[in-house]
C-alpha cells in the first residue's frame, strides 16, 4: 500500500554553467501519509525548494515521479495549495480579493456572496477581521501578509498544502504567533502539510515527522525523525517535554556535522529511503528500542 504522497527516485540536474552538470539531488524517495505534517530541514542550497516546486507541479524533475492519491503529479493543480516564502499576494488586489481570487478559482459555481463569506471566514481564522481586509497587501505588515497567504491556501482545502519557508522573513515574535495560528487551523482539518524551514524549533513544534537532507550536490533525504511529543503542542510547554532536547540535539548534530560528512556519499542501490529515527525518552523500560543500525548512525 502506497502512502498518500509518494516521491519516487526523484533526481534533479541542472547545467552547471561550465558545460557540465550539477546534480542537486539524486533518487530521493520518501512518502507522506494522509493528514500528516511533514517538515523538511536542510542547509541552504540542498534542493528543498526544488523538491517543493516539483511537488507543486511548477517544475519537472530530470527523472523520477511524484504520485499523489494514486495519480501522477503533472503540472500544477488546485489540489496542491502553495504558500510561498515571499507571500506571492497580488499587490493590486485587496486582502479580501486576494483570498476570493483563490476561492472562486476553486469553486467557480459559487455565488459571489458565498465566495466572500467563505473567504472572510478564513481571514478571520488567521486573525484578520474588519477594515484590514479591504487594505492592499502593501499596507499590511509582513506577518499580516503571510496570514493572508495562509488563509488563501487553507480556504481552498487542497489535498496537500505546500509551505516554502512561510515564516522565513518574519521576526521571532510574529513567527511565534503565526505558528500558533497555523497549528490551530491545521488542528481543525485533516490537511496534509509539507513544509520547508530553516528553524529547528519551528520544525519540532509543528511536525509529525522531520525529513533531514544532507548537503548538496548529490543531496539525499537521509533521515526521517519522528516527533514523539503529543499534540496539542504549545511553544512554551513542549520545551519541558523529556523528548524535546533529545530530538533537538539529534537535529542540531545532524545539521551541524553529519549533513556535511554525509554529503555526496552514495549509499548504493535501493537504499535511498530515509532511515527512520525514533527518539522517545518516555519509554524507559525499553532502552534498546531504536534499531541497532540507527545507533551506529547516531554516533
Amino acid at each position: 500500500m502506497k502512502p498518500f504522497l509518494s516521491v519516487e527516485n526523484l533526481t534533479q540536474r541542472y547545467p552547471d554553467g561550465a558545460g557540465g552538470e550539477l546534480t542537486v539531488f539524486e533518487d530521493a524517495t520518501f512518502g507522506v501519509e494522509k493528514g500528516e505534517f511533514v517538515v523538511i530541514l536542510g542547509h541552504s542550497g540542498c534542493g528543498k525548494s526544488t523538491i517543493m516546486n516539483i511537488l507543486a507541479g511548477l517544475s519537472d524533475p530530470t527523472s523520477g515521479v511524484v504520485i499523489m492519491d494514486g495519480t501522477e503529479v503533472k503540472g500544477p493543480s488546485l489540489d496542491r495549495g502553495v504558500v510561498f516564502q515571499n507571500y506571492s499576494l497580488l499587490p493590486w488586489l485587496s486582502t479580501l480579493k486576494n483570498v476570493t481570487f483563490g476561492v472562486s478559482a476553486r469553486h467557480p459555481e459559487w455565488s459571489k456572496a458565498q465566495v466572500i463569506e467563505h473567504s472572510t471566514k478564513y481571514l478571520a481564522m488567521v486573525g484578520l477581521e474588519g477594515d484590514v481586509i479591504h487594505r492592499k497587501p502593501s499596507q499590511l505588515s509582513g506577518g499580516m501578509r503571510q496570514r493572508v497567504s495562509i488563509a488563501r491556501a487553507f480556504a481552498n482545502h487542497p489535498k496537500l498544502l505546500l509551505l516554502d519557508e512561510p515564516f522565513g522573513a518574519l521576526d521571532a515574535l510574529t513567527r511565534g504567533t503565526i505558528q500558533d495560528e497555523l497549528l490551530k487551523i491545521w488542528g481543525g482539518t485533516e490537511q496534509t502539510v509539507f513544509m520547508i524551514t530553516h528553524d529547528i524549533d519551528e520544525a519540532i513544534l509543528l511536525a509529525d515527522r522531520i525529513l533531514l537532507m544532507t548537503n548538496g550536490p548529490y543531496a539525499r533525504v537521509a533521515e526521517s525523525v519522528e516527533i514523539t511529543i503529543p499534540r496539542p503542542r504549545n511553544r512554551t510547554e513542549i520545551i519541558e517535554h523529556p523528548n524535546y532536547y533529545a530530538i533537538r540535539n539529534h537535529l542540531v548534530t545532524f545539521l551541524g556535522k553529519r549533513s556535511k560528512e554525509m554529503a555526496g556519499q552514495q549509499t548504493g542501490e535501493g537504499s535511498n529511503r530515509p532511515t527512520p529515527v525514533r527518539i522517545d525518552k518516555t519509554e524507559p523500560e525499553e532502552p534498546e528500542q531504536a534499531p541497532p543500525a540507527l545507533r551506529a548512525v547516531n554516533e
Partner: protein
Amino acid sequence: MPISSLNFRAAILSLTLLIVGLLIWEAAIPAQKAVGELTEYELLTGGGQPKAGVPPPSQVIAKAWEQLSDPFYDAGPNDKGIGIQIGYSIYRVLVGYALAAIIAIPLGFLIGMSPLAYKALNPFIQVLRPISPLAWMPLALFVIQDSEASAIFVIFICSIWPMLINTAFGVAGVREDWVNVARTHELNPLKTAFTVILPAAAPTILTGMRISIGIAWLVIVAAEMLVGGTGIGYYVWNEWNNLDLTSVIFSILMIGVVGMGLDAALGFVQRAVSYAE
C-alpha cells in the same frame, strides 16, 4: 493653505515668473509707428505694413478672449473657430491612437509572452520604429488616396511603437511568483492574461500609452500642416500665411494646453492602475 507650504510658494513663484515674462515681452515690442511718421525708405521697403511684427502679449490675450468666447463658429473653409479646429485634431489623434492601441497591446502581449515571437518580430520593430512618422506621409497619401485617412495613419504609426514596446516589456517582466499563483489555481491562459498579467503589467503599459499620446499630439500638428484642410496644425499654418502672428501665438498656446490635458488624462488612468508592492 499655510503660506510656508511648498505648493503655495511654488504657485507664487510661477505667477511672478509669468508676469515678469509678459512684462518683458510687452516692453520689448516697439510700439507700432503711425503711417505719418514713416520715412520714405520705410514706406518703400514695406516696413509700414500693419502688424508685420511680433505682437505684444496684450494683443494675444485680446485675441484669446475673442476666440475663446466663440470657439465653434464656422464661416467657411478658411475661417473656423479654434474649438472646431482643435476638435478635428483631437478626433484624428484619438482615432489613430485607438487603432494603434488595439493592435499594439495584444501584439505586445504576444511578444512579451513568447520569446519566439519576440525574436521573430524584433528586427521589424527595430527598423520601423526610428522612422519619422512624417516620412510615411507621401506613401500614405499615395496608397490611401485620402488626406484625412493619411493623417490618421501617420498618428497610428507614430503611437504604435511606445505602446508595443512597453506592453511587451511589462508583460515579460511580470513576476514569476504571480504567474505561479495563477498556475497553482489552474487558471486558463485567457483568465491568467486578464486577471494576473494585465493588471501586473498595466502601469508599464500605461507609461507607453502616455508616451504615445504625447508623440501623437506632436505629430498631428506637423501632419495637418502637410495635408491641410482642417485641424490646429492647418490653422497655425493658415494664420502664418495670413501673417496673423497674434493668432499663431494664440494657437501655439492652445496646442500646449490641449497636449497637457491629454497627458493629464492618461496620467490619471496611470495612477488608477498603479500599485505598490
